[in-house]
C-alpha cells in the first residue's frame, strides 16, 4: 500500500511517524498537566481525602493570606534587584572585556566558570561565607579589619540580598558571553564612521552600541527575569533550618508552592499559587517584550 502513495503522501506518513511519540509526550507530560494544574486550583484536596469542588475558594484564600502578599513582594524584590544589577554588571564587564586582547580567553573563562556550578553546591558555599565569627569567611575578614560583624542570613533586611547574591553571581558569566557576542555582531563600519567624525566614547556608547544591542538586551532581560521570578534552589538551601526565613523574609513564590504542596499537602491551594506564578511570568515577559521591542 505504501508503494502506491505519491511522494507527497509518503512525506506526510513519515512526518507523522516521526512525530507520533513526541506529540504523545507533549500532550501527556506538558499539556495535560497544565490543564490539570488549573483544574486542581479550583478544588480542595489533601491527597488522602476526596477531591471536592471549591470554586474560587483557593484564590480567595490566597488574596486574604498575608504570607502570600509577603511572598509576592519578595518575588518581585528578587526580580527588581536581580535583573538590573546583573544586566549592568554583565554589560560593563563585557564592554571592557571586549576591548582587551591580552589573556582575553583566560579572563573570559574566569567570569564564565561560576555558570558551570550547581546552584545547590554554591548555595552551601555562600551559606558558609555568611556565618558568624568564627565560622563564616565574610565575618572573619571583617573581624580582621576590626569591623563589627554583620548578620547576613539571620537578619530580616539582609537575608534577601544575601540569598540573591549567589544567584546573580552564578548567572553573570552567561550574560557576559551573550553580551560579548552581541557587541561583536555590531558592524565595525559604524565605529569607523564615528571615529572619522571624531565622536567621543560616551556618545558612541549611547548612540551606537546600546541601540544596536537592543535584541541582546531584550533577550538577557527576559531570560534573567524569568530566572529571578522562579528562584528556589538558593533560597531553599541557604535557609533549610527555616525555609524562606527569617520570618518569611526570603521566601519566594516557588518555595511557598513547594511548602503548601509537599509539606502541607494542600494541593488545591498550591495549584492556585502555580497558576498565579504562571500568570506573573506571562505578564512580565509580555510587558518586557513590548517595552523593549518597540521604539
Amino acid at each position, binding site marked *: 500500500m505504501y508503494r502506491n502513495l505519491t511522494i507527497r503522501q509518503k512525506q506526510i506518513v513519515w512526518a507523522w511517524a516521526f512525530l507520533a511519540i513526541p506529540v504523545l509526550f507533549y500532550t501527556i507530560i506538558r499539556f495535560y498537566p497544565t490543564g490539570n494544574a488549573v483544574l486542581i486550583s479550583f478544588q480542595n484536596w489533601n491527597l488522602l481525602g476526596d477531591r471536592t469542588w471549591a470554586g474560587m475558594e483557593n484564590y480567595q484564600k490566597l488574596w486574604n493570606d498575608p504570607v502570600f502578599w509577603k511572598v509576592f513582594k519578595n518575588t518581585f524584590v528578587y526580580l527588581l534587584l536581580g535583573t538590573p544589577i546583573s544586566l549592568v554588571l554583565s554589560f560593563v564587564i563585557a564592554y571592557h572585556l571586549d576591548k582587551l586582547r591580552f589573556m582575553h580567553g583566560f579572563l573570559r573563562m574566569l567570569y564564565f566558570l561560576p555558570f558551570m556550578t550547581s546552584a545547590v553546591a554554591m548555595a552551601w558555599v555562600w551559606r558558609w561565607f555568611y*556565618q558568624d565569627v568564627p565560622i563564616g569567611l565574610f565575618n572573619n575578614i571583617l573581624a580582621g579589619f576590626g569591623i563589627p560583624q554583620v548578620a547576613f542570613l539571620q537578619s530580616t533586611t539582609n537575608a534577601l540580598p544575601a540569598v540573591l547574591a549567589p544567584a546573580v553571581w552564578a548567572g553573570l558569566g552567561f550574560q557576559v558571553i551573550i553580551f560579548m557576542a552581541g557587541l*561583536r555582531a555590531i558592524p565595525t563600519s559604524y565605529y569607523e564612521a564615528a571615529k572619522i567624525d571624531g565622536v567621543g566614547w560616551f556618545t558612541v556608547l549611547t548612540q551606537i552600541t546600546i541601540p544596536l544591542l537592543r535584541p541582546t538586551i531584550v533577550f538577557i532581560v527576559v531570560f534573567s527575569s524569568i530566572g529571578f521570578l*522562579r528562584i528556589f534552589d538558593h533560597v531553599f538551601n541557604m535557609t533549610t533550618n527555616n525555609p524562606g526565613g527569617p520570618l518569611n523574609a526570603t521566601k519566594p513564590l516557588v518555595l511557598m508552592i513547594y511548602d503548601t504542596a509537599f509539606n502541607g499537602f494542600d494541593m488545591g491551594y498550591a495549584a492556585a499559587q502555580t497558576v498565579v506564578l504562571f500568570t506573573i511570568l506571562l505578564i512580565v515577559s509580555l510587558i518586557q517584550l513590548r517595552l523593549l521591542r518597540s521604539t
Partner: protein
Amino acid sequence: MSDIAPSADTLLMAKPAPRSRNMGQILRWLILFIGGIAMIMPIAYMISTSLKWPHEVYNVNLIPEEPTIENYTYVLEDGRFYWWFVNSIIIATITTICNLLFDSLVGYTLCKFRFPGRTIVFIAILSTLMIPTEMLVIPWYLMSQAFGWLDTYWGIMFPGLMTAFGTFLMKQFFESVPDDFIEAARIDGLNELQIWWTVAMPLVKPALAALAIFVFLGNWTAFLWPLIVTNSVDMYTIPVGLSGFGDEADVAWELIMTGAAISTIPTLIVFLIFQRFIIRGVVMAGLKG
C-alpha cells in the same frame, strides 16, 4: 536576532590588536583581572576548604597549610555520595541521549517536511516554553503516584526527556542543511529515517554538542523535581543528597564543602577541557534560541 546571523566562531575571535598600549588599557586589564579572580573565589574556597583539616577550616587562608584528602575519603566511605553520584550520572546521561534523539528528530521533521498540521505542532511545542516547571510538578507528582513512578529513575527522568528549547534549537540548525542534499539522498534510495540519521545529523554536530552540554548540565544540577519525586536516600541525585547532607545536625563545614566540591568538580573539568566548545555553544544557543 538571527537576521544578523554571524557565526558563533567569528563572534568569539579576539578583535584586531589595539594600537595603543596606554595606561588606560593596563588599568582596564588589571580591574577585570581582579574582578575575575573575585568571581572564582567561592569555587576556590570550596575546594581549598575541602582539603583542610578541621582545625584549619575557619582560617581565611586560601592555601591549606597541610592539604589532606581525609575529607574526601570520609565522605566517599560513607557511601551515600557514591550512590548519589552514580544516580546523577545515569539520569543526566539517559536524559541527554533522549533529548539529542527526539529534539533533533522533531526539529528536523518540522524544518524539512511539508505536511498538514506542521504549523500547529510547531506552535504547540513552542508554547510549552511559556509553561513553568513549577506549575507542572503537582500534576507530575500525582501522575507518578498513580503509576508507581515515585522514587524511581524513570520518575526523576520522564519530565525532561524532550524539551521545546532543544527542538527549537535543532530546527534552527537544520535550516542550514541544504535541501539538495536530502533530495540527492532520496534519489539514492535512502528512506527518510536513514536520511535524517546519515545525512542531516552529521551536518549539525556542533548544535548537537551544544544541546548535549545544556541538557547534561541542567539535569546534573536539577533540584526541585528530584527533591519532590525521590523519597529514599538511595535514589537521591547529588543536589538533593547534598542538600539533605548539609542539613544534618552536626555535619562539619569542611565535609559540606567536600560534598559541594564532588558535585561541582566534574562539570568544571568538562568545562576546562571543552572550554572553547562550550562557550561557542552558549553563544549559538543564545543567538538562535
